C-alpha cells in the first residue's frame, strides 16, 4: 500500500512537472499580453523536433551536457521564431476581440503542425535519453527512472528560476509593471512594445527548451503539440491565468489528481485532470490564485 502511494505520488509529480514546463511560458504570455496562445503547443513541438534533429545529427546517444546544450539551442531557435511571431501576429492582436485572437493563435498552431509534417514527415520518431539519465533508482522499493527524476528537477528549478526572475530582477519587475497597467507604463516612458517582445521571445524559448527536454521517451508525432497543450491549458486555467505560482500549484494539484485517479481506475487514464479542471472551474472560475494576477 505504502509502495503504491509512493509510486502514485511520483507519477503525479512527473505529470505535474512535465506539464509545468510547458505551462510556464503559456501563463507568462497570458499574464502579460492577455493572449491564450494555442500555438504554444506547436512551438513546443518544434522545439522537440529541432532537438531531435540535433541529437540524431550528432550521432544519437549523447552525453548529458550535449543534450542540455541541444535543448538550449532548440530554445534559441524557437525564441527567434517567437520574435517573428510577435512582429507578424501578436502585435496586431492587441485590438482584436478575445475570441478572434484565440482563433488566430489556433491558426498559428495549424501552421506549426503543417510545417512539422512537411519537414519531418508523419512517421513516429524517437530517441532514448542520454545514457546518464537512462537508468533507474530504487527509493525504498519504488521504481524511479532517472530521466523522470531529471524532469521533476527541471520543473522545480524552472519554477524557482522564474519566481526569482520575476520578483528579483529589474527586467522581471518591469514585466510586472507592464502586466499590471500597460497604459500607465507607457506614460512613465517604458518601452511597452519592447517588454512585450521580450516576454514573447522568452516564453517561446521556454516552449522550445521544454520540447527539447521532454523529447526523449516521447514518440514524436505531429500530434504531440495537442496532447501537452491541453494539459498545460488546464494547469494555466486552474492556476488562475497568468500566475506562475498558480500554474505550479495547479500542475501539482492536477498531476496528483490524475495519477491517483488512474491508480484507482486504471482503465480511464487521462480523464481525471479534465474532470478536476471542470469542477475547479465551476467552483472557482478565477482559478486557485485568481486575485493575485500575473507572474
Amino acid at each position, binding site marked *: 500500500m505504502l509502495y503504491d502511494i509512493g509510486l502514485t505520488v511520483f507519477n503525479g509529480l512527473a505529470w505535474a512537472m512535465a506539464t509545468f514546463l510547458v505551462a510556464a511560458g503559456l501563463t507568462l504570455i497570458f499574464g502579460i499580453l492577455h493572449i*491564450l496562445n494555442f500555438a504554444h503547443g506547436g512551438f513546443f513541438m518544434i522545439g522537440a523536433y529541432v532537438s531531435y534533429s540535433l541529437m540524431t545529427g550528432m550521432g544519437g546517444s549523447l552525453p548529458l551536457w550535449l543534450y542540455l546544450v541541444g535543448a538550449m539551442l532548440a530554445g534559441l531557435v524557437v525564441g527567434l521564431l517567437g520574435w517573428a511571431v510577435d512582429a507578424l*501576429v501578436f502585435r*496586431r*492582436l492587441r485590438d*482584436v476581440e*478575445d*475570441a*478572434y*485572437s*484565440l*482563433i*488566430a493563435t*489556433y*491558426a*498559428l*498552431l*495549424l*501552421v506549426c*503542425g*503543417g*510545417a*512539422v*509534417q*512537411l519537414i519531418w*514527415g*508523419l512517421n513516429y520518431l524517437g530517441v532514448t535519453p542520454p545514457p546518464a539519465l537512462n537508468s533507474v533508482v530504487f527509493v525504498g522499493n519504488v521504481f524511479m527512472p532517472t530521466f523522470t527524476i531529471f524532469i521533476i528537477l527541471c520543473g522545480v528549478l524552472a519554477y524557482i528560476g522564474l519566481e526569482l526572475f520575476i520578483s528579483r530582477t529589474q527586467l522581471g519587475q518591469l514585466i510586472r509593471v507592464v502586466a499590471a497597467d500597460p497604459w500607465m507604463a507607457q506614460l512613465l516612458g517604458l518601452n511597452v512594445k519592447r517588454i512585450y517582445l521580450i516576454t514573447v521571445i522568452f516564453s517561446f524559448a521556454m516552449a522550445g527548451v521544454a520540447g527539447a527536454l521532454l523529447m526523449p521517451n516521447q514518440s514524436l508525432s*505531429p500530434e504531440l503539440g*495537442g496532447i501537452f497543450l*491541453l494539459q498545460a*491549458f*488546464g494547469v494555466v*486555467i486552474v492556476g488562475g491565468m497568468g500566475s506562475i505560482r498558480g500554474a505550479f500549484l495547479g500542475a501539482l494539484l492536477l498531476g496528483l489528481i490524475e495519477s491517483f485517479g488512474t491508480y484507482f481506475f486504471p*482503465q*480511464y487514464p*487521462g*480523464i481525471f485532470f*479534465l*474532470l478536476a*479542471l*471542470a469542477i475547479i*472551474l*465551476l467552483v472557482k*472560475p478565477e482559478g486557485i490564485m485568481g486575485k493575485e494576477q500575473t507572474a
Partner: protein
Amino acid sequence: MIDYRARFRTNLMIAGCGLAAFAVVPFVANSGLMFLAGLVAINIVFGLSWNLLFSGAGLLSFGHAMFFGGGAYAMAVVSLRMPEVPFVIGLALGAACGGLIALLFGIIALRRASGVYFAVLTLAFSELVHILITKTTFLGRNDGLVGIRRPVIDLGVFSIDLTSATSYYYFIIVVMALVAMMLWCFQNSPAGRLIQAIRQDMTRTAFLGVHVQVWQLTAFVLSGSIAAFCGAVMVPFTQIASPEIAYWTVSTQPILFTLLGGAGYFWGPAVGAILFGTIDFGTRTMQGLSEITVGILLLAVVLMIPGGLLGLLKRRRKKARRMAEGSSPAQHEQSGKTEAGQ
C-alpha cells in the same frame, strides 16, 4: 421594417442553387469526388450550427466535436446493435443525443464561464467525451464501430432505397439544404433575434426581462443537436464511426469554415466549407501543405479581412459601385460582424 418574406425568398434561392450545384456533382465527377462533396455538404451544416452559437449567441465553442461524435456514435450504435429501429428514428436519436450532451454541459459551463473560459471548458469537455469513447468497449474503443449499413427508408406505400453511395449522397444534400433553411428561419425568428440581442448587449437585454442564460442554453442545445444530426447523417455515408470524429481537431473545423467564409454572414460557413474542401483536395498529395495553407489563410482573415471571404467580396462590390457612382469615399464601410443573419 425588414421584409422577411423577400429575404426568405432570396435565401431559399441561394439554398436551391447550392442544392442544384451539389446535385450535378455525381454526373460530372468520379465517386471519390462525390464522396468528398457529400462530406462538404455535411460540413456546411456543421459550420452553420457552430456559427449559430458564435455569431448568434456570441459563444465561442471549441468543443463541437463532442456533439458531432455523439450523434455519429448514437447513429452507429442504433444501426449496429438495434437494426430493427427505423433509420429516421436513429437520426432523431442522434440529434437528441447531441442535444442532451449540450444540455448537460451547457448547464454546467454557462452558469459560470464566459469568453475564453467557456472556450477552454468546452475543449476540456469534448476531450473528456473523446477519451471516454476510446476507452469504452461498447463503442469499439480505438477501433471505432465499422460496417454500418446504409438504410432503406420504408414509408409504407413505397420505400426509398439509400443503400448505394449515390442515392445516399442525394439524401444528404437534400436533408442538409432543408436543415440549413430551418436554421435560417430560426435565426430570423423572434427567438433568434432575441439571442442576437443578448450577444450585442447582455445587460440591456436582461433589463428587458429576458432570462439571458436560458436563451444562451437554448442556443447551445439547438447548436449541439444540429451538429449531432450532421454526425448521425455522416455515419451511414462513411460506414464507420471512429474516435477521431470526436477529437478536438474536429471541433476546430467549423471554426475554420466560419471564419474563412465570413462569420457575419449566414452562408459564411458554407463558403468556408467549400473553400476548405477545395484546399484539402488540391493539396492532398503534399502532407502538411493543407494545414499551412489553411492556417495562413485563417491568420490573414483574422488580421486583415475580418469579414472573411464574403466580407471581402462585399467590400469589393461596394467599392466598385462607389467608383461607378462617383460618390464621396467618406461613406462608412459596414463591417461584416454587425450584419449577422442576413
